[in-house]
C-alpha cells in the first residue's frame, strides 16, 4: 500500500497544468548573463550556476520526508515570449556556428532551452557511489589538490576547468545548506510536534550532507536527489542513468537495518518518495508526441524524458546481484506504476526465482520495468572494448543506450537506417526518390545537421554496386548490401572524425556540470568531450531491421524460389511505388513469410543482416579513434521519420511509410504466438548488440492468475536463456486501449511502455496511441 501523502501527490500531478514551469531559472539566467561574460568558460559556467542556486525558491511539501522541489508557475504571455526570444537569440544561427559551440545536440527542441555558455544534455550517469561516499567536501578537496599541480596551474584550460568545477561543488553545497536552513525555519514555525521533529531531522541531515558523506540510507537518497534536482532543472542535465541503486545503496541499507534505525517499510517509503520526486518534476505529456499542445508548449524539454535505474544483474566474478533492496525497488515500482523512473532489471542465468516472479508480476501489472539480459550484454559490451573490471556496472539511459556509469560522457548517437543500404543495393547505389544521375558523390552523405542530430534525413547515395540482374540468390544481394553498409559507415566515420577534430579546436574543455561528477575528468583535468573519461562511445542504432528482413524474405520467395519475376522487374515495380501492381503490393505485405514467426530461414536472414551490420561497425572502429561505435537495434520512435526517406520496399511497404520499430517484427506480422516471436528474435546474434527494445503486447487473459504468472515468468526466462536481449511488455487489450481513447478520464494512470521510455496512454498523441493499438496482441 502506498502512503496516502504519495498517492495524493501523484493524483495532483495528473491534474497539473502542462504550462507549469520552473521559470526562476530563466529569470536568474537573464540576470546573470552579462555579469560573468568576461570570465573563462568554466568559471562563467560555475558562477552562473551559483547565482541561480543562491536564489531559487526552496519549497518543502507537507509531510514529505525526502525534500527537494522547485517552484513552478504558469508563465505569463510576456514571460513565455522572453523564453522563446532567448532561444532564438542563442541558437538561430547557421548550423556551422552551432557546431562550433556543440558537437551533438539530439534535437532543436533540446538545444534551444539552454544558452551556449550554459548547456548540458545529460544522458549519462554521475559517480553516484562517489557522491555518497565522498560527499561534496571530498570533491572539493580533490579539486583543490588538483588545482595546485604544476601541470594544471600552467595550463589555462585545465586550471579554468578545475576552478569552474570547484565553484560548482560549492554552489551545490550552499544550495543544500540553504535547504537545511529552510527545513529548520519551517520546523520552528510548525505546531505539529511529530512533523517538527521530522523537519529538524531533515535539517540536521541536509546540513551534514551539504559537505560530508552520507551516514544513512536516508541521507544517501536525499543527497542523490538534491544533486539530481538542480542538475536537471537548472543545468538541463537529465535523462540520468541512476545506475545500480540496489547495489550502491545496499551498504547503507544493511548497516541501518542491522543497527535498527531503519525498517523495511521505511526504506520502501523512501524509495517511493524518490520515485515520486522523479515523476513529479515532469511535464504531464508524452515528449515524443511532438504534435501535442503540451509537448509543443513546454519550455523544459529536458525534463520530460525520464531517469533510468538498474536493478539486479551480476556482480564482478559473476556473483548474483539481487539483494533485499532489489526487492524493495521492484515493489515500489509495482505500487506506483509511474512514467519516471524507468526501471531496467538485469536478468542473469539462475536469477532468484522469487525475485523473478516479483519482477514479472510487476510487469504484468504494467509497472515501468523492462528487462535486459546479462548473458548477452556482458559479452556484447566486451566486444567493443569494455574491460572486465568495468563491464558489470553497466546501466542504461534513454531511450535505449547502454552506459558505464561515470566512465563516459553524454549521449552521441546515429540512427543508422538499415533500410537505406538495401534500397541502395537494389539500385546500384542510386536513390530513386531523388535520383542523382551522373553527378559525382559529394564528400559525405551525412549533412551537418544529420551528424549533429543523428537522424539520416534527406537523400543518401551509395557506391555503384553490381546490377541486380547479375545476382542469383539472396546471398548475392546480401553481399551488395554489405558493400553499401560499409560505404555508409565509412563515410560516417570520416565525417564524424572531422567533427571531433573541430570540437577539439572549438569546444573541448568547455565544462558542463556532469564533468564535475564523472570519473577521470577531475583526475585528468579534462572534460569528457576532451577525453577525460575512460570510455567514449557513439551508439549506432540499427533501425528498421524487420523491414529489411521481410524484404529479403520476399525477394527470396518471389524471385529466387517461385521465380515469378526477376529482381530487376521487382525493383522497377518498387520504383513505381507499386502503381499498377496493387495486388502484388498486398501480397508482399500480407502473404509472404515474415520475421517473428519462428521460420528458421527467415530468421537466419535476420542474423545475416545483423552480422553484416556488426562486422561493418567493427571495421570502422579502431584504437586510433577516441570514439568507439556501439551497435544497437534501436529506432526509438523515429521509425516514422526514417521511413519518410526510404522508397517502396519488397516487403510491400509503400515509399515513405514507417519502418519496423526497434527489434520488433513489422507491426502485426507476428502471428504464431509468443514463443514463435521470442524464438525468432532469440536467433539474432545479440552477443554483439549492445541495446534496443523488443516491444510485446500481451492480452491480460494470457497472464492471469498464479499459473499465468508462473508461465509468463518461465516464458521470459527461457527467452533470455536462449539469448534474447530485452523485452518491454504491455499487458493490455485492444478493447481497453480503444476504450481509453474514448474515455480518457477513466484511464489517466494507464502507463505504457513505448520504445524505451514510458508514457501515460491518454497523454500520448493519437498517432502514438494507434501504433500501440495496432501491435500484435498475444493471447
Amino acid at each position, binding site marked *: 500500500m502506498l502512503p496516502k501523502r504519495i498517492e495524493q501527490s501523484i493524483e495532483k500531478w495528473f491534474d497539473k497544468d502542462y504550462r507549469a514551469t520552473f521559470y526562476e531559472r530563466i529569470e536568474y539566467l537573464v540576470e546573470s548573463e552579462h555579469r560573468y561574460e568576461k570570465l573563462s568558460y568554466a568559471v562563467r559556467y560555475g558562477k552562473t550556476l551559483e547565482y541561480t542556486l543562491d536564489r531559487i525558491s526552496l519549497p518543502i511539501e507537507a509531510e514529505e520526508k525526502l525534500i527537494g522541489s522547485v517552484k513552478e508557475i504558469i508563465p505569463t504571455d510576456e514571460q513565455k515570449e522572453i523564453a522563446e526570444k532567448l532561444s532564438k537569440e542563442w541558437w538561430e544561427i547557421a548550423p556551422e556556428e552551432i557546431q562550433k559551440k556543440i558537437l551533438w545536440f539530439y534535437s532543436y527542441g533540446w538545444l534551444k532551452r539552454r544558452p551556449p555558455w550554459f548547456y548540458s544534455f545529460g544522458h549519462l550517469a554521475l559517480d553516484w557511489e562517489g557522491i555518497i561516499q565522498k560527499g561534496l567536501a571530498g570533491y572539493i578537496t580533490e579539486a583543490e589538490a588538483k588545482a595546485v599541480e604544476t601541470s594544471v596551474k600552467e595550463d589555462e584550460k585545465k586550471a579554468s576547468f578545475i576552478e569552474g568545477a570547484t565553484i560548482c561543488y560549492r554552489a551545490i553545497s550552499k544550495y543544500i545548506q540553504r535547504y537545511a536552513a529552510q527545513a529548520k525555519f519551517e520546523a520552528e514555525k510548525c505546531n505539529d510536534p511529530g512533523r517538527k521533529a521530522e523537519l529538524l531531522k531533515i535539517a540536521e541531515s541536509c546540513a551534514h550532507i551539504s559537505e560530508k558523506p552520507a551516514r544513512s540510507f536516508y541521507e544517501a537518497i536525499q543527497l542523490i536527489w538534491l544533486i539530481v534536482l538542480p542538475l536537471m532543472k537548472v543545468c538541463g542535465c537529465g535523462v540520468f542513468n541512476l545506475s545500480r541503486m540496489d547495489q550502491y545503496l545496499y551498504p547503507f541499507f544493511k548497516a541501518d537495518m542491522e543497527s535498527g534505525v531503519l525498517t523495511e517499510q521505511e526504506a520502501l517509503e523512501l524509495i517511493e518518495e524518490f520515485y515520486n520526486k522523479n515523476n513529479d518534476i515532469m511535464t504531464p505529456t508524452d515528449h515524443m508526441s511532438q504534435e501535442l499542445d503540451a509537448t509543443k508548449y513546454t519550455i523544459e524539454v529536458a525534463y520530460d524524458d525520464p531517469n533510468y535505474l538498474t536493478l539486479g544483474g551480476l556482480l564482478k566474478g559473476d556473483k548474483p546481484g539481487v539483494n533485499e533492496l532489489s526487492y524493495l525497488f521492484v515493489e515500489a515500482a509495482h505500487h506506483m506504476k509511474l512514467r519516471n523512473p524507468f526501471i531496467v532489471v538485469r536478468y542473469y542465468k539462475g536469477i532468484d526465482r522469487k525475485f523473478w516472479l516479483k519482477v514479472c508480476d510487476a510487469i504484468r501489472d504494467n509497472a515501468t520495468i523492462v528487462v535486459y539480459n546479462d548473458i548477452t550484454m556482458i559479452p556484447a559490451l566486451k566486444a567493443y572494448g569494455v574491460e572486465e573490471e568495468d563491464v558489470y556496472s553497466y546501466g542504461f539511459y534513454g531511450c535505449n543506450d547502454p552506459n558505464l556509469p561515470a566512465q563516459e560522457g553524454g549521449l552521441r548517437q546515429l540512427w543508422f537506417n538499415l533500410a537505406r543500404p538495401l534500397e541502395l543495393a537494389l539500385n546500384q547505389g542510386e536513390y530513386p526518390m531523388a535520383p542523382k544521375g551522373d553527378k559525382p558523390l559529394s564528400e559525405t552523405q551525412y549533412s551537418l545537421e544529420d551528424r549533429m542530430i543523428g537522424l539520416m534525413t534527406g537523400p543518401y547515395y551509395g557506391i555503384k554496386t553490381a546490377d541486380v540482374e547479375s545476382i542469383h540468390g539472396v546471398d548475392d544481394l546480401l553481399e551488395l548490401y554489405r558493400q553499401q553498409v560499409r560505404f555508409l559507415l565509412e563515410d560516417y566515420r570520416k565525417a564524424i572524425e572531422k567533427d571531433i577534430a573541430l570540437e577539439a579546436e572549438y569546444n573541448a574543455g568547455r565544462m558542463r556540470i556532469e564533468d564535475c561528477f564523472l570519473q577521470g575528468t577531475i583526475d585528468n583535468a579534462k572534460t569528457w568531450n576532451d577525453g577525460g573519461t575512460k570510455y567514449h562511445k557513439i551508439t549506432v542504432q540499427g533501425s528498421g531491421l524487420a523491414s529489411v528482413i521481410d524484404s529479403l524474405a520476399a525477394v527470396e520467395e518471389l524471385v529466387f524460389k517461385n521465380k515469378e519475376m526477376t529482381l530487376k522487374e521487382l525493383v522497377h515495380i518498387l520504383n513505381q511505388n507499386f502503381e499498377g501492381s496493387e495486388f502484388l503490393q*498486398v*501480397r508482399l505485405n500480407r*502473404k509472404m513469410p515474415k520475421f517473428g514467426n519462428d521460420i528458421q530461414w527467415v530468421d537466419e536472414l535476420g542474423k545475416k543482416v545483423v552480422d553484416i551490420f556488426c562486422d561493418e561497425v567493427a571495421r570502422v572502429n579502431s584504437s586510433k579513434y577516441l570514439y568507439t561505435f556501439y551497435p544497437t537495434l534501436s529506432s526509438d520512435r523515429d521509425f516514422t521519420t526514417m521511413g519518410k526517406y526510404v522508397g517502396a520496399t519488397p516487403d510491400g511497404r509503400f515509399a515513405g511509410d514507417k519502418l519496423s520499430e526497434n527489434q520488433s517484427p513489422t507491426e502485426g506480422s507476428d502471428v504464431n504466438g*509468443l514463443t514463435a516471436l521470442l524464438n525468432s528474435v532469440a536467433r539474432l546474434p545479440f552477443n554483439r548488440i549492445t541495446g534496443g527494445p523488443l516491444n510485446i503486447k500481451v492480452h491480460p487473459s494470457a497472464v492471469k492468475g498464479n*499459473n499465468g504468472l*508462473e*508461465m509468463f515468468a*518461465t*516464458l521470459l526466462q527461457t527467452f533470455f536463456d536462449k539469448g534474447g536481449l530485452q523485452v518491454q511488455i504491455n499487458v493490455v487489450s485492444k478493447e481497453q486501449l480503444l476504450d481509453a481513447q474514448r474515455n480518457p478520464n477513466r484511464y489517466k494512470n494507464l502507463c505504457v511502455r513505448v520504445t524505451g521510455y514510458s508514457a501515460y496512454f491518454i497523454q500520448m498523441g493519437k498517432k502514438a496511441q494507434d501504433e500501440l493499438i495496432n501491435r500484435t496482441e498475444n493471447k
Partner: protein
Amino acid sequence: MKGFVFNIQRFSINDGPGIRTTVFVKGCNLRCRWCHNPESISPKQEIQYFPEKCVMCGKCMEVCPTGAHFINHFGEKVFDRSKCNCCGLCVQNCLYDALIQVGSYMEADEVIETVKKDIEYYRNSGGGVTFSGGEPMLQKEFVKEVFDRTKALGIHNALDTAANVPWGDLEYVLPSVDLVLLDLKAMDSAVHQQATGVPNERILENAVKLSQKEVDIIVRIPVVPGINDTEGNMNKTAEFIKDFKRLARVELLPYHDMGVDKYSSLGKSANEAVFETPSREKMEKLAACFSKHNIAVCVE
C-alpha cells in the same frame, strides 16, 4: 502418416500443465450443443468467410470454378456455399483473410517439427504437447505416431478426449500418453444424449478403465447453464471419480460465447449454441461439490 489438423496453438497454458503446444484435429463424434469450436466438428475441409474483412477486390470471383462467389443485385458480395466444392482456390487468392480454409492434412513430421520448436519452454515449465480437437481418438494412428515420437524426445504428452471410442482404441495410444484430459459432460445418460447426441455409458466405462491405468487424469467439465450446471450432476461426477487413483484434479470450464461468431463464418446458425455464462458464485458453488470429496478442483 497424415492427420487432419485445423490448428496448432503454441504457448498454450490451459491445456494441461506448463507451457504447451496444442494440436487441434478436425472431426468429432459428439455434437455438443454449446460447442465453441464449431470448425472442429466436420471431418471435411471447410471454408470460413468473414464478410467484414472483405474489401471487394473480386479475386475470389475471378478464380472460383463454380461461381460460388458473386455480387448480388444489391451490390453485396455473396458466398453461396451450395455451389462450393471446397477447392480452396478462393482462399489462396484472398489477401485479406476474409476467406480461410479450415483443416489441412499434415504429416506427423510436420507436426513434430512445430512441436519441437518450443521444447526448451516445455522443459522449463513442465509443459509439453496436447492433442485436442475435435476428437483426437478418431485419428488414433496419427495421434499414436506423433505421441510415440514426442515421447522419445522426452516431451510430455497430453490427450484431450471425450473417450467416446472403443476401449481398444484408447488402449492402443495409451502407452505414450502421460496425461489424459478427460471431458465429462453429464452423468445422466439421457441428459448426455440430449446435450451431445450420444449416451454416456461407453464414456463412463472407458473412464473407469482409464483410471486403472498408469496415466494421470484431469477431468474437465464444461459448465453449461440449463444443461449440466446442477450440484446434483457435480455430486454424481465427484462420487464417480473420487477413487480414480491418478486423478490430478478437476477443471470446471464455464461456458463462454467466444465461439459464437465462428458459426456464421461457417454458414451455420449459432442460435442453438448460445447460453448464459455462469456466474463466478455459481462456479464456486459447483466446485465445492468436488472439494468436499477432497478432490482438487479449479475454476478457469
